[in-house]
């Protein structure tokens, strides 16, 4: 049933991590196309994602990275193209569908609710109920518990400047807000975690902690898609790198097969990647 | 009984004649008075081979809605218009219609000036109020009157509102200040109707002419003075609401008077909820008006105003089961027979 695998540049993947690519991809996208009026968003993009790997997506501004992951996570419904999760065809009509299938996403625009506080945002659509009859019959939220756990999650990302966990998210600094979104994805992703520029607004220390978190997620067997403009970050954590260019895919490389400079050159079109067999 | 209308209709109308377009334009479509008018007219339209279109303002005060309806009627090529003019704001449009050759009859409310329309079929709202006042004064039999006035609106001033209210006070024999302004009379003094006596006006409250509004208005009045013994209401729905409030407050002595004499209202008289109500005949107005237009359109003669008046009086009768001397009235059984003018 499942789509044919995309070719892998096996030799460029270190021995220690080859086992990842022995099983079938957890997520495959084929020929994704989306247009907005006369603007072309995606122009037939293919993507394979394996359990336990970090797939980075890089590309110029406006290359279609965010559009690509939106099509994968149900935020956009592509005009054409197919999606397979664990070998089964899926169509996500809404982000909720993708979430329920185990794909957790941090969108570039963060998707936090300004007026709700940090804990409410972290647990949004994942609320926990009180134990006992209050929870089961009256469906009462466990506000206190969620607040405490939210505090821990955010601190785990190194954000220590939040003075009041009951603060509305709209009053947070850009980086604090991003930390809330990232903490949410990390807490709830069960199969795939998609991060669209998760460290853009974060400080040095906080970024480092997010990278650690990504590695942890990968090690527990989740698949991670990381979009970033920070090449050192990408080269540090990625297993493979999908290069997006002008709405299409300009090729997939690995940190081992190519230098950062090459990656940047390919993504800006200064160099083209010869198709590998 | 409908004999009056079918008599006249029998003369000319036959199945073969071309139908005559008539538009009935009321003030609104929710006041039971106008609803009765519309329904009655619709029922009788076939008899005169009239093609009737019913229109109205959106609500009381909607001059523009009436003007639009008049223009629509002209454009449609109607032969005549029956209208309860909202205010003098529609006079210009009526003139346009008459210039275009339509025969325009005012119903219920005479326009100002009266010759704005070809003829008016109306009741006198002031007289309706007056009958209530006279009856109430006589019924009180010299006792002090503690009065609540439940008017129509607080966000608009309309002629029915002050005509009925001020007519009632005049009937009671209380000096009204500006005859077109509610609430500017002295709050206490002597009434001269009946045997005469002291009066206190507790309140003027708007009821919106509906049960819920009538109830709220009455409650406010009662909070100010629970000894109210005479309640004037703009129409019978308001009276029903007032009665509910009185009952809840344990006040069973107050007399309620009202205006309209609709079928439900007469029933309320019979049950003793309303002491007396001035009955008007909207249905008669509408059917007579339609007949007249149909007749004229087919070359017949135009109707004439009632002798001594500048309008064709369709009459007002006081309906009560406790008649008093000096005020002519009919009882509720009789009133029920002719309610709304059927």
């Amino acid at each position, binding site marked *: 049933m499942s789509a044919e695998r995309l070719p892998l540049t096996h030799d460029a993947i270190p021995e220690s991590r080859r086992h990842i690519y022995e099983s079938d991809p957890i997520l495959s996208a084929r020929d994704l196309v989306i247009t907005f009026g006369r603007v072309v968003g995606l122009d037939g993009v293919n993507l394979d994602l394996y359990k336990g790997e970090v797939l980075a997506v890089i590309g110029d501004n406006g290359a279609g990275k965010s559009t690509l992951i939106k099509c994968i996570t149900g*935020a956009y419904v592509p005009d054409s193209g197919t999606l397979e999760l664990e070998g089964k065809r899926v169509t996500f009509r809404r*982000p*909720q569908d993708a979430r329920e299938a185990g794909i957790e*996403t941090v969108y570039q625009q*963060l*998707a*936090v*609710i*300004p*007026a*709700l506080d940090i804990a409410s*945002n972290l647990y*949004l*659509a994942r*609320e926990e*109920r009180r134990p006992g009859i209050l929870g089961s019959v*009256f*469906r*009462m*939220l466990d506000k206190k518990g969620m*607040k405490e756990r939210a505090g821990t999650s*955010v*601190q785990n990302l190194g954000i*220590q*400047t*939040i*003075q*009041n*966990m*009951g603060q509305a998210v709209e009053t947070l600094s850009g980086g604090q807000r991003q930390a809330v979104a990232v903490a*949410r994805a990390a807490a709830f992703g069960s199969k795939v975690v998609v991060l669209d520029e998760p460290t853009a607004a974060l400080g040095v220390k906080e970024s480092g902690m997010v990278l650690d978190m990504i590695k942890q997620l990968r090690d527990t067997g989740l698949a991670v898609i990381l979009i970033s403009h920070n090449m050192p970050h990408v080269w540090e954590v990625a297993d493979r790198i999908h290069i997006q260019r002008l709405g299409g895919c300009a090729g997939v490389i690995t940190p081992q097969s190519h230098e950062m400079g090459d990656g940047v050159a390919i993504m800006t079109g200064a160099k083209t990647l010869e198709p590998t067999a | 009984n409908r004999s009056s209308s079918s008599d006249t209709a029998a003369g000319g109308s036959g199945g073969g004649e071309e139908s005559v377009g008539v538009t009935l334009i009321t003030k609104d*479509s*929710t006041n*039971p008075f106008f609803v009765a008018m519309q*329904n009655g007219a619709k029922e009788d339209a076939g008899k005169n081979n009239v093609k009737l279109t019913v229109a109205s303002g959106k609500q009381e005060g909607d001059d523009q809605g009436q003007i639009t309806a008049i223009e629509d009627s002209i454009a449609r090529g109607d032969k005549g218009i029956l209208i309860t003019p909202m205010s003098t704001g529609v006079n210009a449009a009526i003139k346009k219609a008459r210039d275009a050759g339509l025969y325009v009859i005012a119903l219920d409310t005479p326009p100002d000036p009266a010759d704005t329309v070809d003829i008016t079929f109306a009741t006198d709202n002031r007289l309706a109020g007056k009958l209530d006042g006279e009856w109430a004064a006589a019924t009180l039999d010299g006792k002090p009157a503690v009065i609540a006035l439940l008017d129509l609106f*607080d966000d608009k001033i309309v002629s029915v509102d002050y005509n009925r209210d001020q007519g009632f006070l005049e009937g009671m024999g209380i000096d009204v200040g500006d005859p077109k302004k*509610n*609430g500017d009379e002295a709050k206490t003094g002597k009434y001269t109707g009946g045997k005469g006596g002291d009066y206190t006006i507790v*309140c*003027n*409250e*708007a009821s*919106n002419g*509906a*049960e*819920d509004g009538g*109830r709220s208005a009455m*409650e*406010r009045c009662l*909070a*100010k*003075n629970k000894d109210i013994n005479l309640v004037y209401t703009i129409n019978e*729905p308001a009276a*029903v*609401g007032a009665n509910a409030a009185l009952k*809840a407050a344990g006040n069973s002595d107050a007399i309620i008077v009202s205006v309209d004499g609709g079928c*439900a209202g007469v*029933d*309320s008289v019979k*049950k003793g909820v309303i002491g007396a109500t001035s009955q008007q005949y909207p249905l008669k107005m509408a059917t007579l008006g339609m007949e007249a237009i149909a007749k004229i359109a087919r070359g017949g003669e135009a109707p004439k105003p009632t002798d001594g008046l500048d309008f064709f009086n369709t009459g007002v009768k006081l309906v009560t089961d406790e008649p008093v001397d000096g005020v002519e009235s009919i009882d509720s059984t009789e009133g029920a027979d002719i309610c709304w003018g059927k």
Partner: protein
Amino acid sequence: MTTTTGSAAAEFSRRQQSPLQRLQHVLHGRPWLSPLFLLVVAFVAFFIATPTFLTASSMGILLQQTAVVAALAVGQTLIILTAGIDLSVGAVMVLSMMVMASLAADGGMPGLIALLIGVALATGAGALNGFLVTRINLPPFIVTLGTLSIFTAIALLYSGGSSIQADRMPRLLNFLGEGFGIGAFRLTWGIVVVALIYIVMGFVISQTAWGRYVYAVGDDRESARLSGVPSKRILLGVYTVAGLIYGLAAWLLIGRAGAATPNAVPDANLQSITAVVIGGTSLFGGRGTLIGTLIGALIVQTFAFGLSQLGVDQQWRYLAIGVLVIVAVAIDQWIRKVKA
């Protein structure tokens, strides 16, 4: 008192707070305190100005007069919290009222069945609004503007414009108008029903996930959607629940008016919206409380009642209410903005 997380944050907020700042903080968490303040002021003022205001019987009446609008305002609050608006609230109530009354009076149905059909109809009407908002993706203002005309016209056509008196209906339909009380302070069963509506819905929107979704959808619908909130289902639910509440309000209104009339509460939409907004709920969605709405409804009614007790003329009263609306919200803004 403060849940400070981590030492850095603790260090951050070591400053002393002035009493005013503390007041501001309290108000920030409980935005309905400032309308409450206004309500109390109004009570004191009217109490001083007129002896007939603060009496047991007056208070009972005030509550009864507030009941219908207060009930409608619950549905309106839910909808406004989702950044919508409902102009059809009165129309739905009237339609439901006419249907339940006429089924019982003319159709000879048992009261309970007529009541259930009437409430179900209102619920369906709300669901229709919700359907148009979520499936056809129309702005709520448009949808309810349209259904306002539609439901009103149907109610008029169905009832032929005439009203149905209470004595023609079974007792159940009138039951909410019946009262009980201690001395002169009389309450109706209708008030009890309204109180229950507030308690239940207050619990639902503040303590359950559904309530949180209502706020989230209203504050930022796209972000809520991206966060996995089933925003369409929530919206549909909100409109449907609102319809159900309007159905209950219809029942209430029969008891209150002692009749079912097609022209009852003609300005129900403005009245209910006013209560919601005076109660501190934002018309842009996502911010507000039900308790605020209740206070808002009470404020308007208190002013209308108090001014009438003072014997103020009708047109002046109309003017005063206009001023009140502006002043109430201005005070609210001012109190919240107080800074040390």
